[in-house]
C-alpha cells in the first residue's frame, strides 16, 4: 500500500490528518511479565490459557497489558505545516485506569509545545481494554508515542474520505509488508527498541514497574483488516526513494516478491509465473487497460496522485475477478483542502504539473498533467538513421478530481484520468530481414470518467458505489495492414462492508462491466506463443470489421470471522457470468490468518486457497476471428506462509505458493480453416509453484528490504504433452535495496537485482521465404534455452531544500551503475545460422528537478 508525502498521513472518520500514532506499550507489568514468561509457557498465549495458568495455586501473576480499542488521531499543528522535514515524535506517559480510560497523560519526550499539545489532546480520546492481572482489570501506566509525519503542508482538517477502505502507513510505522491491519493486538510480551520514555513509575494497581526496554511499538492502523493472504505495501516515501525506478509508483512494485523482472522495455507485470495479460490493473476499482506508458517508461498515473497501491500477487479477495494472475489496485488520493498547492517536476523523460486546493469548505479539486519529451531527442536520432518520423514517441496523461463532502458521512467524487501514447514513422529503408516498408504507427489511449460515492453508515458500515465510463483505443499501422480497435467499458462496482456481529464482518458487492467494441483489422495470423519469426511481408492477410458487446455481471460476498483474538477466517465466493463462453462461474476462496504470537514480536501464520476464472480474450472467442464455444481459463491458487517480526521495524515473511492452471486457451494454426488462420481451444494446462521471502527493515532514517523469489512456471499445450518452461519463467529473483537519510537534505539509496535469464527458443537455422526475400527461423524445442543471468546496481541521490512556503529538490537516479551488458535475448544473422546476445540498457543516469508549493 502506498502513501504519498503530500497526502494526509492519517485518515479517519474524525478527520484531522497528518499524524501517525504509534502505540508504545509497557504498562506496569514488564518485570513481572518477564518473570512470568520465564516460567509459564507459552509466551503470548491466548487469554484463556493465561487465565488457566493464573488459576493454578502458587503460579506467578499473569499480566496482560492494555489493548487499544479506540484510537484517536492528533491534529497536525497548522502553524507547523510545511516546516518539518523529519518526523516529529512526542512520547507521552499515559495513566490508564481499570476501565481502560486515560486518566492522565504527561509528556515524557517533547518536541515542541504545539506538537505536545496536539498529542495530549488526542491522548484523552484514546480508549483501551484495561490491563489485567490474573484476569482482573488493573490500572497501569504506559509510554505512548505519537509521530507526526514529515509533510510539506498540513493535512485536511475537516473530515476526509479515504478513497477506498485502506490502511494508512507512515514513514515511522513498523513495516508490515503483509500487514494484518487490525487495531493493535494485545501485547503481553514487551521488548525494547522504540525511543520511549524511561521507566514509568508503577501505577497504584500495577504489580511492578516497567522499564525503558519494556516497550513495544504497535502501529495503529486504520480500518481495513487484511482480507487476503498477502497484500504488499510500499509507502509513498519509499516509492520516491527506491533507486532504479525513477520514483515511479507502479514500477516500484517490481521490487516485491513474486514479481518477475519485466523483459526489457516492455513494461509488463509478470506475477508469480503468470503471463502479463493475467494481471489486472485498477484505479480505485476501475479496470484500465495498461499500467504503463509504452516501453514501461513510467506509469499512467503519476506517483504524486496516488494514495496507495495494493498489490496482490495471488489468492486475492472476491472483490476481484475475471483474472487469474495478480492484482494491482491503485487509489487516487483526495485533493488537499488546506490551501492551494502546486507541483512542478522535470526530468529527462517528462515534465509534470499539478495544482490542487479547496473550492469552499466542502469541495476540493486537483488537476494534473504530464507530457514526455522523449520525442525531442529521439526524433533526430531516428531521422539520422534515414527513418521518416511523423510522430516521435510521445506520451501524455492527465487527471482531474473534484471531491465534495455531501454530508459528514458521505463524500462524492468525480474523477477523470487518461493516458495517450503515440508513435509514427515512415520506413523508406526497410529491414531486409523482413522488408515491410512504409508507414508504421502505434497509438493507444484510454480515459475514464469515474463517479464515486462513499458513505459511512451506522454501525461502522461502509458503502461505496463507483460508476465509470471510458474509451480505450488502439491503432496499429504496419505498412498497409492495420488493427484499429475502440472499446467503451462501462463499469459499476457497489461495495458494502458491514459488521454483522462482534467478530463477524461482511463484505459484499456487485462488480459488473459492459463493453462495446468496434474493430477493423487487416492482418496475418497472430503469432502463437513462442512461434519462430517468419517474415511478415507478403504473408496472406485477412480483413474484417466487427462490432461486439459483452455484459459481464459479477457478485461477491465474503464473511470475515474472528473466532478468537488473532485468528481470522475469511471465506467468500464470487459468481461471474461470461456471455462469450456462456458460463456462470462460481469461485470460492478461503483465507486464514492466525497470529500465533500476537503482540510483539508478532508471528502470523497464513494460508489460502481459491478458484479464479479468466475469460478468453475477444479475438480468441468471438467469431469470425476467434473460435466460439471456448470455456474460461481456470486457476486454483494455494498458498501458505508466515510473517515474523524479528525486531522493531524488522520483519521476515515467507510464503509458498502453487497455482494449478487448467482450461488454458491455446492457439493452433488453422490457415485453411478459419478467417484468422488460427483457431483456439481450451487444451492448455500448467502450473506455477515456488516460494517468496521478504526481509524488510525500517528505521527513522533507513528503509530497505531483501526480496527473493524461487519459482517455476510450466505449461503444456495439449493433454499428454510433457510440461515445458513457460515464457515468463524466472527461477531466481533477488532484489536488495536500501535507502538512508544522511541528514535533513540528503538521501542516498542503492538497489541490486539478480534475476535468472529469460527463457528463449533457440533457432536451428532458417528456410527461405522467396516472397519476402528473407528467411523464417526453424525452432528448437520451445523455450529450451535461457539468457545469461541479469544483474544490475542502481544508485540514487536526493537533495531537498525546504523553504518557508515551498520546497525544491533534485535527484540523480543512475541505473546500471557498473554498465553490465545484460542479455535481453538473442539476435541472429539473416538466415539464422549465427546468433549473439542482445545487450539491454547501458548505464543510464536520470536527473530530475522538483518543486512543491
Amino acid at each position: 500500500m502506498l502513501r504519498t508525502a503530500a497526502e494526509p498521513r492519517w485518515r479517519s472518520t474524525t478527520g484531522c490528518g497528518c499524524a501517525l500514532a504509534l502505540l508504545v506499550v509497557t504498562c506496569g507489568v514488564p518485570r513481572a511479565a518477564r518473570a512470568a514468561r520465564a516460567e509459564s509457557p507459552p509466551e503470548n498465549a491466548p487469554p484463556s490459557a493465561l487465565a488457566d495458568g493464573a488459576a493454578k495455586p502458587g503460579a506467578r501473576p499473569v499480566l496482560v497489558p492494555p489493548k487499544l480499542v479506540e484510537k484517536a488521531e492528533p491534529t497536525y499543528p497548522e502553524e507547523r505545516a510545511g516546516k518539518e522535514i523529519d518526523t516529529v515524535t512526542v512520547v507521552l506517559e499515559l495513566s490508564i485506569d481499570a476501565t481502560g480510560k486515560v486518566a492522565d497523560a504527561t509528556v515524557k519526550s517533547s518536541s515542541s509545545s504545539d506538537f505536545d499539545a496536539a498529542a495530549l489532546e488526542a491522548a484523552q480520546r484514546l480508549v483501551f481494554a484495561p490491563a489485567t492481572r490474573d484476569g482482573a482489570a488493573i490500572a497501569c501506566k504506559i509510554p505512548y508515542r505519537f509521530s507526526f509525519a514529515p509533510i510539506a503542508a498540513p493535512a485536511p482538517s475537516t473530515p476526509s474520505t479515504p478513497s477506498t477502505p485502506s490502511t494508512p502507513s507512515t514513514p515511522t510505522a513498523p513495516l508490515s509488508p503483509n500487514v494484518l491491519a487490525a487495531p493493535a493486538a494485545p501485547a503481553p510480551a514487551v521488548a525494547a527498541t522504540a525511543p520511549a520514555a524511561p521507566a514509568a513509575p508503577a501505577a497504584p494497581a500495577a504489580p511492578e514497574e516497567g522499564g525503558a526496554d519494556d516497550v513495544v511499538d504497535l502501529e495503529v492502523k486504520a480500518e481495513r483488516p487484511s482480507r487476503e493472504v498477502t497484500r504488499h505495501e510500499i509507502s509513498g516515501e519509499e516509492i520516491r526513494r527506491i533507486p532504479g525506478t525513477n520514483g515511479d509508483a507502479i514500477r516500484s512494485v517490481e521490487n516485491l516478491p513474486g514479481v518477475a523482472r519485466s523483459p526489457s522495455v516492455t513494461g509488463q507485470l509478470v506475477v508469480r509465473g503468470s503471463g502479463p495479460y493475467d494481471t489486472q490493473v485498477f484505479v480505485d476499482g476501475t479496470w484500465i487497460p495498461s499500467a504503463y506508458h509504452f516501453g514501461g517508461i513510467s506509469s499512467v498515473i503519476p506517483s504524486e496522485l496516488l494514495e496507495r497501491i495494493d498489490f496482490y500477487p495471488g489468492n486475492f479477495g472476491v472483490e476481484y475477478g475475471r483474472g487469474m494472475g495478480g492484482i494491482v489496485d491503485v487509489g487516487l488520493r483526495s485533493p488537499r483542502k488546506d490551501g492551494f498547492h502546486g507541483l512542478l517536476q522535470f526530468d529527462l523523460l517528462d515534465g509534470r504539473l499539478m495544482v490542487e486546493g479547496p473550492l469552499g469548505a466542502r469541495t476540493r479539486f486537483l488537476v494534473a498533467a504530464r507530457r514526455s519529451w522523449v520525442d525531442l531527442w529521439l526524433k533526430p536520432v531516428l531521422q539520422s538513421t534515414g527513418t521518416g518520423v511523423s510522430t516521435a514517441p510521445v506520451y501524455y496523461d492527465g487527471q482531474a478530481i473534484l471531491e465534495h463532502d455531501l454530508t459528514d458521512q458521505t463524500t462524492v467524487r468525480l474523477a477523470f484520468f487518461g493516458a495517450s501514447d503515440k508513435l509514427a514513422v515512415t520506413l523508406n529503408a526497410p529491414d531486409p530481414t523482413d522488408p515491410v516498408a512504409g508507414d508504421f504507427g502505434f497509438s493507444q489511449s484510454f480515459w475514464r470518467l469515474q463517479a464515486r460515492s462513499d458513505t459511512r453508515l451506522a454501525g461502522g458500515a461502509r458503502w461505496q458505489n463507483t460508476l465509470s465510463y471510458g474509451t480505450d483505443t488502439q491503432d496499429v499501422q504496419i505498412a498497409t495492414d492495420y488493427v484499429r480497435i475502440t472499446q467503451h467499458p462501462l463499469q459499476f462496482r457497489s461495495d458494502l462492508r458491514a459488521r454483522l456481529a462482534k467478530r463477524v464482518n461482511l463484505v459484499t458487492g456487485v462488480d459488473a462491466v459492459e463493453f462495446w467494441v468496434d474493430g477493423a483489422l487487416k492482418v496475418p495470423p497472430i503469432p502463437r506463443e513462442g512461434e519462430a519469426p517468419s517474415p511478415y511481408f507478403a504473408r496472406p492477410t485477412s480483413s474484417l470489421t466487427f462490432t461486439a458487446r459483452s455484459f459481464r455481471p459479477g457478485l461477491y460476498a465474503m464473511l470475515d470471522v474472528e473466532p478468537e483474538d488473532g485468528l481470522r477466517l475469511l471465506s467468500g465466493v464470487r459468481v461471474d457470468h461470461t456471455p462469450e463462453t456462456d458460463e456462470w462461474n462460481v469461485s470460492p476462496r478461503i483465507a486464514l490468518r492466525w497470529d500465533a504470537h500476537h503482540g510483539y514480536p508478532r508471528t502470523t501464520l497464513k494460508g489460502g486457497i481459491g478458484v479464479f476464472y479468466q475469460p478468453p480474450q475477444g479475438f480468441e472467442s468471438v467469431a469470425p476471428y476467434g473460435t466460439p464455444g471456448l470455456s474460461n481459463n481456470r486457476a486454483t491458487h494455494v498458498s501458505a506462509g508466515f510473517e515474523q517480526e524479528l525486531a522493531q521495524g524488522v520483519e521476515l515473511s515467507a510464503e509458498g505458493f502453487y497455482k494449478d492452471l487448467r482450461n488454458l486457451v491455446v492457439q493452433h494454426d488453422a490457415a485453411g480453416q478459419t478467417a484468422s488462420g488460427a483457431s483456439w481451444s481450451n487444451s492448455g494446462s500448467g502450473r506455477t509453484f515456488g516460494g517468496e521471502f521478504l526481509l524488510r527493515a525500517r528505521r527513522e532514517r533507513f528503509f530497505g528490504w531483501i526480496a527473493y523469489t524461487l519459482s517455476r512456471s510450466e505449461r503444456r499445450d495439449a493433454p499428454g504433452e510433457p510440461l515445458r518452461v513457460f515464457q515468463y519463467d524466472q527461477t531466481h529473483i533477488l532484489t536488495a535495496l536500501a535507502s538512508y537519510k544522511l541528514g535533513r537534505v540528503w538521501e542516498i539509496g542503492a538497489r541490486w537485482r539478480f534475476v535468472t535469464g529469460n527463457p528463449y527458443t533457440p533457432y536451428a537455422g532458417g528456410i527461405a521465404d522467396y516472397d519476402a526475400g528473407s528467411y523464417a527461423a526453424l525452432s528448437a524445442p520451445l523455450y529450451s534455452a535461457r539468457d545469461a543471468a541479469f544483474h544490475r546496481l542502481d544508485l540514487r541521490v536526493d537533495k531537498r531544500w525546504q523553504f518557508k512556503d515551498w520546497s525544491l529538490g533534485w535527484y540523480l537516479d543512475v541505473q546500471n551503475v557498473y554498465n553490465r551488458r545484460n542479455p535481453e535475448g538473442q539476435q541472429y544473422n539473416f538466415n539464422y545460422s549465427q546468433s549473439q546476445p542482445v545487450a539491454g540498457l547501458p548505464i543510464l543516469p536520470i536527473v530530475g528537478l522538483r518543486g512543491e508549493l
Partner: protein
Amino acid sequence: MSAARHAAWALVPAGALLVGALGAAASCAGCGSDFDPGSRVAGTRVLAVQADRPYAHPGEQVTLTALGYDTQGRALEWGWTTCLDPDSTAVTACLLRLADDLARGAPPPFQAGSASTATVTVPTDALSRLPEAARGSAYLGVLIVTCPGHIDLTGKTGDVPLACVDASGRALALDEFEIGVKRVFVRAQDRNANPVIASVTWDGAPWAESDVKEVSPCASATENRYDRCDGEKHTLAAHVTADSFESGVDETGAAFTEQLVIQHYATEGIFEYDARVASSPESGWVARAGASGKTVTLWLVARDDRGGMSWATRQVRVR
C-alpha cells in the same frame, strides 16, 4: 504490450500483432551486429523465385523460375515439391508438411534435376475445399531445395527431413545449401502482375546490363559499415514502372495497395541500404578492398507484397 487479458478483449490482438509483425524487424536478425549482411551472397543462394502467375486460378499451370547462384561455381541440383493448404501461412509449414508426409511413408511427388524452373498445377479444388472464410488466404506452397551436390530424401539435416550431399559425400549443413518456399496464391478471379523493372541507374545514369562498370575499392570499408568508407562511393537504383504499383479491391472485397520494395544483393561490397522502397530506390554501394581484381555481380530484386517479383543483374569490376 501490457494488457489485461480478461477485459481488453479487443486490444490484445493489436499488441500481439505488433510484436509479431515488427518484433523480428525490431529485435531483428542481423541488425547492429557483427554479422555479414544478408545482401552479401556467399555459397549457394536463391535470391528470388518468380511465378508467371503470382495469383493463379484453380486448375491453372504456373511456371516458376528461380534466381540461384553459387559463388563457388558448383553445379546445383534443384528439387521441387508442393504443399496445398498447409496449417500456417508461414513458410515453415510446408517443411513440416513434408516431414509429416515422409514420416508416415507417403512422400509427395518430388521433382529433382538441374533445371532452375518448374511448372506446377493448382488443384481444381484448391478453393472449393476450403471454408468460405479461409479462401482469402489460400495458396499452393512450392518447396524448393537448392543443393550444390545431390538431394537425399532419406537423409536428415538436423530436424530437416532431407539432406544435401556434396561431391565428396559430405552432408552439408543447413546454411550450406538452401531450402525455401514460394507461395502461389490461389484466387477465383484476381490476378497480380509481377513488377517490371524499367531501368537501372548507376550514379543517376542509365545502366545497361551489358555495361560492366569499373570501380576502385574503398580501403577504409573493412567492416560491414557503408558509412565508414571515405573513398569511392556509387549510387545505384532499380526503377519500376508506374504500373507496377497496383491497388484496388480484391475479390474478397478488401482494399489493397501493394508495397513494392527493391532488395539488393552482391557477391562483394557493402550497400548503403540492403532494401529500399521502390518509390525511393536509391542506395549507395562500395567495393571493399578484398574485392580488388574481381568482378562483382549485383542483383536488384523488385518484390511486391502479393508474391510478384522480377530482377535485374549487373556487374562491376573492381580495380
